[in-house]
């Protein structure tokens, strides 16, 4: 592609007059309508592109193109980048053939998929207006709006903002490493566990990276409806703008000091299959998509979002952590399953001193030893279906029971996207483990230690829904958390 196209923030696209549709979103809406009218067997159709992500009820991929979405794996970001890029080309090819006065020739030539930056302040955490209008009325166009779908969270569709904890990308941006080597245990970094083409690894489930959990998974769950499940998410037109933002956040992360994408051949060279705008087969690898300019696009703004609001030592923000080769040791865990039913729930468990505490009193600490890290793990998260909201995870010091779930103690989310597939033994996708999450809580522990509020013998973890239950909806299905545990390295 000769020209580098610019993906823009949908909330910054200017509109004049009463309609929320400016040229880019209007073009997108009309192109979606064209795609929706194509036969499902057509690789450039709406239904087919949604099935590239996941096929409803499929036991295995019907071919090398469909039911291919990569989750809980370090292929999550590059695969979705390829998926988006080819989808964008399909849309653009349709846009260029539109015969609509309201869309200029320039827009047709330079159309690029906009992104939904839900952390842009003001109303940006709300669904963009063009996606909430039931009718599309612009010039001589008057039709049902292809960008509106009923199957979303009722309140989000009505203009309520997504919860702040669901859209916050600060924790992801703070990750220094893209992934963790498997010998260090299943901890995930920004991009997810090192795996092969699969969502699991030999000794347990692959973990989603921090960016996959928040804001990716939590926005999926909190928008709800079609967006809340693997096999229907691609049918909601907001899916593509959401993933465009996730792709932008990856780009923002990669431009921060010290961040590098993986250079292992098994990440760079694995081949994925798609169709281009002509319906012809194309392939891509993770290594071929690390440079967005080479793919023909860039983002109008890759400023990293603000850091997570919870307190941390300022020096921790600046220092580049050393990569430890030691596997974290488990130092405490819950005894029983925790059931989440849409209300806050807390668990407490005792913690043992990490191995080596005695050693520090007998031997001089090796100066070259990397600083210790503390991880909270949540494993075997199961449920029949996505409850339609994400849960915040909070590590609460004793004495703060009244405010267990406040931003200061927020360590991450249970996004729950993919929960219905996670325990399904009829699928490789991901194949029966339940969901698992890992949170690096080192900075929070250090702050609480400095304040004298960290109890080394006991920890309390609180799960709280990121948005209150909707009284007009049926109670959400329960989510079962198999185990909460603490690890030191």
């Amino acid at each position, binding site marked *: 592609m000769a020209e580098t196209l610019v993906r823009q923030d949908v909330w910054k696209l200017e509109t004049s007059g009463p309609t929320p549709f400016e040229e880019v979103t209007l073009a997108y809406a009309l192109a979606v309508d064209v795609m929706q009218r194509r036969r499902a067997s057509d690789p450039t159709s709406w239904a087919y592109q949604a099935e590239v992500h996941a096929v409803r009820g499929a*036991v*295995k991929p019907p071919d090398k193109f469909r039911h291919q979405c990569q989750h809980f794996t370090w292929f999550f970001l590059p695969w979705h980048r390829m998926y988006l890029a080819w989808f964008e080309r399909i849309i653009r090819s349709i846009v260029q053939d539109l015969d609509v006065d309201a869309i200029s020739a320039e827009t047709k030539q330079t159309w690029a998929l906009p992104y939904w930056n839900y952390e842009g302040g003001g109303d940006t955490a709300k669904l963009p207006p063009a996606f909430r209008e039931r009718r599309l009325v612009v010039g001589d166009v008057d039709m049902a709006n292809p960008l509106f779908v009923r199957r979303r969270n009722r309140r989000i569709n009505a203009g309520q903002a997504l919860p702040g904890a669901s859209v916050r990308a600060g924790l992801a941006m703070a990750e220094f490493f893209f992934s963790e080597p498997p010998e260090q*245990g299943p901890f995930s970094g920004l991009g997810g566990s090192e*795996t*092969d*083409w*699969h969502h*699991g*690894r*030999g*000794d*347990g*489930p692959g973990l989603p990276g921090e960016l996959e959990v928040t804001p990716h998974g939590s926005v999926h769950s909190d928008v709800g409806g079609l967006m809340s499940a693997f096999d229907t998410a691609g049918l909601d037109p907001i899916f593509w703008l959401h993933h465009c933002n996730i792709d932008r956040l990856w780009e923002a992360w990669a431009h921060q000091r010290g961040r590098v994408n993986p250079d292992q051949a098994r990440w760079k060279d694995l081949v994925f299959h798609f169709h281009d705008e002509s319906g012809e087969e194309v392939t891509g690898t993770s290594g071929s998509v690390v440079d967005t300019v080479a793919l023909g696009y860039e983002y109008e703004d890759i400023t990293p979002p603000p850091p997570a609001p919870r307190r941390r030592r300022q020096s921790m923000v600046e220092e580049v952590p050393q990569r430890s080769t*030691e*596997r974290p*040791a*488990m*130092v*405490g*865990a*819950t*005894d*029983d*399953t925790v059931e989440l039913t849409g209300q806050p729930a807390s668990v407490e468990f005792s913690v*043992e*001193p*990490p*191995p*080596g*505490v005695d*050693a*520090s009193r007998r*031997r001089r*600490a*090796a100066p070259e*030893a*990397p*600083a*210790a890290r*503390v991880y909270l793990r949540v*494993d*075997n998260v199961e449920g029949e279906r996505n409850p339609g909201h994400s849960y915040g995870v909070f590590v609460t010091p004793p004495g703060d029971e009244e405010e267990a779930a406040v931003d200061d103690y927020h360590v991450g989310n249970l996004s729950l996207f993919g929960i219905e597939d996670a325990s399904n*033994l*009829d*699928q*490789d996708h991901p*194949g*029966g*483990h339940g969901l698992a999450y890992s949170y690096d809580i*080192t900075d929070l*522990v*250090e702050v609480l*230690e400095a304040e004298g509020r*960290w109890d*080394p013998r006991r920890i309390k973890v609180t799960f709280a829904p990121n948005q209150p239950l909707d009284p007009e909806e049926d109670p959400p299905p329960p989510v079962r958390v*198999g*185990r909460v*545990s603490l690890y*030191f*390295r």
Partner: protein
Amino acid sequence: MTSVLTAARSPWWAVSVWPGRFAQRHPDWVVWVAAAAAWAVIVGLEAGSAAHGTGGDLRDHSWVVIQAGWMLMTLAMMGPSTVPAVRRVAFDSLPRRRSRAISIWLAAYFAVWLVFGTVATGFATFGERVRWALPGALLVAAAYELSRRKRRALRACHVTVPLPPNGRKADIACARAGVRHGTACVEACWALMTAMAVAGHGSLLLMVLLSTIIVAQRWLVVATRLGPHVAVILVATAALVVL
């Protein structure tokens, strides 16, 4: 109060001498050692039987000896396939409980195979009297490779279960996890292991082949897609046996 993070900066492996450090990083070492020893014993017994022209008829052995032989073969063939799960059990346990957790888990796991062996070894004596027993068992195994049940069982082998950290609850959970994993493995591999039991003595090559298949299906993350390929291999093996 000494910061637990500061204390943890002292590399915890420093308290151990080299073998201890190796064991901490590779808690599955006991499985590898046991499996290797089982293979060594089996190879030695096969060599001895061949040299002396003895041991060919199972009806010459007591039930206890037959079961012991079955467990030796199971340890050799299934042992390496337990390594991912053993590692997971170890690293999901408190460090001071790792040995206990692994021991309980392995005991429960192999207890399931012991129970299955009482049935499978019955086929072994049958196999010695019927010429077509082994090819038939291999064809049954080939057909099973293509079944949904086999694929589900393979996925079930990768499933992890939450383990409480301490006390009797932890012991019971480890035992249940071992039984659960053993049951999934029996469901996945019963046909292959039954064929091995029918093959009986003098079947080292077949044992190597089936062990390779079992380990590949446990360790490879696309194992559920190997079914057709494994089926072809088993059919070809059955044909070779007939010829």
